[in-house]
């Protein structure tokens, strides 16, 4: 019984030291706040017509899915001490090219497949262009992907001729709005991507090598690590994942909005990665953490709407929650709290003595 209790406390302690622990707490707090306003907030119903679960939580999971997808790619890129600012724009490119293709090719399942493939390919190619600029030309990741962010948005507009192209295709609609086992397809796919990428990097030697080039590229080179190859892999992965996210974002409304699809989503992804405990300095990374960060961002977005905070105050509210979280994660702030506690403890025990002396 006592051993059971100690193993439970040690499990709790390891969870407490996980970088994403505070992210989980923040999600729970936000949900609690929402439940206070509406006690039935967490309720989940079943819609027999569509065979789906319905409720606020399901909405959050659906909204978190695209953020989680690009966060996984962003997490790998950031681990190499880089950054990918172009993911939001690449989402628009993928949406644009798939909608254009569907608008002309019609509603068959084959057309949907072709649109998917083309969008993925284009995402991967543009990711590879990022990699060329960074690892071959030697530009800084920030500049290279900033260029791609501007160019990508432009490319999306060129593809659709500046229009917000709409199309109809049942297969395509299903992948964005359909359900399997009562859960949204898009959420299941995001979970699948997180697990697959996580297993791939941790079961192979990719994770170790990515961390090595992120922490110390010169040392990694002398150890024979192929930095260029790894950079191509992570930027292509980031581009392809952005394309997947872009397909879902446009398929859910069957329209690509070239100005707004994926707009500033790179910021959400970067925040999700940081909340998940991956340092922007590169090195150690945590893909589970990035996924939980994405979940928190989505929860935050839904909470802002649910609480009826005015849209002009929304960014400030988001910023406050995220800053509070970063402070909680900061080792320095935690040390400060610990030092204060250590200081106040002896003072209280000395107090009676002083009273006697006085």
């Amino acid at each position: 019984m006592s051993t059971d209790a100690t193993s439970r406390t040690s499990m709790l302690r390891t969870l407490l030291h996980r970088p994403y622990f505070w992210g989980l707490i923040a999600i729970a707090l936000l949900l609690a706040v929402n439940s206070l306003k509406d006690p039935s907030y967490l309720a989940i119903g079943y819609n027999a017509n569509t065979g789906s679960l319905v409720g606020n939580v399901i909405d959050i999971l659906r909204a978190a899915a695209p953020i989680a997808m690009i966060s996984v790619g962003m997490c790998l890129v950031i681990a190499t001490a880089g950054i990918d600012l172009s993911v939001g724009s690449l989402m628009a490119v993928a949406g644009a090219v798939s909608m254009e293709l569907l608008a002309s090719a019609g509603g068959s399942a084959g057309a949907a497949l072709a649109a998917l493939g083309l969008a993925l390919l284009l995402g991967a190619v543009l990711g590879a262009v990022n990699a060329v600029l960074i690892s071959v030309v030697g530009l800084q990741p920030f500049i290279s992907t900033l260029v791609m962010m501007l160019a990508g948005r432009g490319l999306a507009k060129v593809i659709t001729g500046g229009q917000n192209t709409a199309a109809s295709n049942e297969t395509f609609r299903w992948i964005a709005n359909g359900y399997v086992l009562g859960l949204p397809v898009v959420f299941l796919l995001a979970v699948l991507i997180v697990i697959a990428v996580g297993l791939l990097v941790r079961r192979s030697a990719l994770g170790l090598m990515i961390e090595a080039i992120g922490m110390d590229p010169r040392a990694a080179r002398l150890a024979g690590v192929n930095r260029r190859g790894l950079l191509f892999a992570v930027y292509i992965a980031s581009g392809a994942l952005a394309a997947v996210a872009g397909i879902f974002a446009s398929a859910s409304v069957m329209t690509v909005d070239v100005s707004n699809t994926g707009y500033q989503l790179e910021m959400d992804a970067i925040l999700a990665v940081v909340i998940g405990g991956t340092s922007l300095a590169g090195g150690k990374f945590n893909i589970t953490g990035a996924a939980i960060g994405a979940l928190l961002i989505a929860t935050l977005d839904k909470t802002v709407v649910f609480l009826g905070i005015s849209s002009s105050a929304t960014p400030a509210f988001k910023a406050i929650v995220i800053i509070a979280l970063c402070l909680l994660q900061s080792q320095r702030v935690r040390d400060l709290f610990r030092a204060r506690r250590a200081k106040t403890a002896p003072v209280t025990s000395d107090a009676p003595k002083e009273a006697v002396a006085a």
Partner: protein
Amino acid sequence: MSTRPAAPDAAPLVEMAAITVAHGPVEVLHEVDLTVRAGEIHALMGENGAGKSTLINVLAGVTSPTSGSIRLDGRPLRPSSPAEAQAAGIRAVLQDVPVARHLSIGENVMLGHEPRGRFGIRWGELHAQAHRVLDELGLGDMDTRRRVRSLSPATTQLVAIARAMADEPRVLLLDEPTSSLDTAEVEQLFLVLRRLRERGVAMVFASHFLEQVLALSDRLTVLRSGTRVAEFPAHQVERSELISLMIGHDLAELRRIGSQRREHRSDPAGPPFYRARQLAQREVLAPTDLDLHRGEVVGIAGLRGSGRTELARLLAGGATADSGTAMLDGRALSLRSPAAALRHHIAMASEDRLGEGVVAGLSIRDNIVLALQSRRGWARPMSRAERDELVAGFIDELGIRPVDPATPVERLSGGNQQKVLLARWLATRPRLMVLDEPTKGIDMGARVEIQALVARLAASRVAVVIISSDLDELLRLSDRIVVMKDRMKIGEVSNGPGLSVETIVEMIAAPEEEDLPPLTGLP
């Protein structure tokens, strides 16, 4: 003449008494006393980890002592920050020279003391003042507007000292100021320090270079494992006594390695397995030939910048040659990258242990498997059992501390970091191991272990190329010594009883530098 004894009757300027510093249960310093007089250079000697830096940090206000007292001019002083120590007239130049590399010399020297006028900093006045400070140190020919990043390590060190002198401190603390300097640069630095001594500045000089300490200091304090073992005037000291005070039993161990190497030493027989012909890199290395035999230790002697590191990098794929050929086992060898060299079982440990060697944030385990794993490729990870066995084997064989393979390498001492790095290369089963200053900045115990490892490698038919500024070390380990100067190989000598440190120094020294004393590290 240089070892002028300080006036013994002069009143002590700094008195540190019974200084103890403990990190938790571990005592880094145990009741250490130190007395420094004005106009005296007081050397702190001891191995790395003996407590030299900690003692200096206490006086500089960086570290607070657990117990003990400090008096300056007879008045008690307890600096709790570098700023308080500076206010009391104590300045420190610590081991990692903290200069702003992108600023000019003048801006660095006057950092924090910039002359201000109505419109902000008066730049002309700043450079004039910086020039005055430099001039007083005999460095008046420095251009104060030059960027520090373009300077050599020695000049950078001098700028750091000039900055410390800008507010005319009475006590100057120097922690290993010569560890990255070569002979001529050391002389330049010592000239400045002697000038400061004339001006009555009290100096504490921490170093583990015996010859330098004897050439410069007035008094010596020897630390070992955090305690003071002796203090005496520099002109009374016996070298052998000093060495045995500092390192004790390790000296016998070094002798044993030396004699073991001599027994195995043999003139290379048969054709060399590695053959470099006219290997050259523009502006870095003139065409150079080198042959290597299995089981042979080849030492490269030369000053920093003589082309020794560049030659080593070309041999092991760390840099790419512009011309010349390398042959391995009679086949042409193309070394485009370190990865290519590792595929041919050629490994190189860089001199820059932290920048190019270990990956500080990764664990001991990940650091050891990194090179082997890169050669296998990302898709063929080692199984956990295979990896753990390999890592445990090296931790045991090389005596890496701590033994927990999950410890991040940044928490290890310099000697243990070097052992982890060597384990990484040994895991790739090298046929040629290139070691660039493998014992630089490492304590005596680890140094002995690394030298023993080189001897073992040679005995197991691995060819070793070793670069060291410590010529005694080269003579102890090498079968052959290649001498480099001015980006050229100027000679190659077979090691034997007739060869001494002086012979090699004579080969390196230019005629006009012949009167320089050979400044070598400890054995």
